[in-house]
């Protein structure tokens, strides 16, 4: 029998999970590059992206994170980047698989006010975390 680090849960329990913002960041290596890229992004020349991590207030703690990009429509979630320690199981207790779980979480995440939280976090020079 193999082991893993997933926290298993039936999909129908997801509605009861309360998600809290943990941390967010912009994917730049230094402030100067960030500033110049911000200017370029404003002129539509390139894009700015980052990451965000959220956790549940339950035990064991669930975590979900994803990457985001700034586009003309605002902050967009990169569906392929969703990462989580959660593994949803079906009514027989069988794993739905990491990809199916991630797809379900995209729907959950999109219902969160994550965009405003991320913007607030990346603009705060001293982010307080949760």
């Amino acid at each position: 029998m193999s082991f893993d680090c997933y926290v298993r849960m039936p999909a129908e329990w997801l509605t009861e999970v309360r998600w809290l913002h943990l941390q967010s960041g912009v994917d730049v290596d230094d402030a100067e590059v960030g500033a110049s890229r911000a200017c370029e992004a404003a002129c539509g020349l390139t894009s700015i992206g980052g990451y965000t991590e959220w956790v549940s207030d339950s035990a064991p703690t669930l975590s979900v994170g994803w990457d985001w990009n700034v586009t003309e429509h605002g902050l967009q979630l990169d569906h392929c980047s969703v990462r989580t320690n959660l593994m949803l199981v079906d009514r027989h207790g069988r794993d739905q698989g990491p990809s199916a779980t991630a797809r379900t979480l995209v729907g959950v995440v999109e219902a969160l006010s994550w965009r405003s939280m991320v913007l607030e976090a990346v603009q705060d020079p001293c982010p307080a975390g949760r």
Partner: protein
Amino acid sequence: MKGWQLDQLRLIRAATSTEDTFKSILAEANRLGFQYCSFGMKAPVPIVAPPVIWCSNYPAEWQKRYEEQGYLRRDPTVLHAMVSDSPVLWSDALFAECPELRREAASFGLVHGWAQPRRDAQGMVSLLSCARSDPPISPEELDSKIERLQWLSYIGHEGMLKLWSTTLRGSGAPDLSQRQLEVLRWSSDGKTSADVAQILGLSEATVNFHMRQVCLKLGTANKTAAAVRAALLGLLW
């Protein structure tokens, strides 16, 4: 360094056992969408049968089968790691010379995988493999996750190295004096004892003496083997 990289680095550095370190690596591999993960490391010497340490959460039956069949010597991802630092996706083409390995692995749920070799200046080579049953790894998904996967390979190497290096390298890198290193470097470049003596302003007898000491410290029978071993151990730079 980004926030998430620092967090992961701290976690790995705080781990004090192979189990805890591997658990950290596995947890991140799971988060990135891979049910299975393996991490292995090999020493540079001896060349013919270097010591290897491996850990994974692959099904126990598969691990047993892998060892019984001697797949380590034929696994194309392992062979790739010996000659390249670039990551590799599992595919039928990659396993063309060993299709039975791919078939058997798939029967245990190890169908789609990604592997990243890493090597350091002392010649230690590691291989991180992340695998799952389904679905295939799309180019878009890999593009999204490659940075995190490669960082995982880097911190896995650092984390396991601190725990495994003594076991893998035995007594550790031999302590060669500056003069011994000089003599060895010139010798590695093809210079004869007479040449080295002239270059360093020594007698040929002194050069030969230093070379004998080098061979003793490196545990080799001759200066050619000493040069190879020293190069693999990263001592000549």
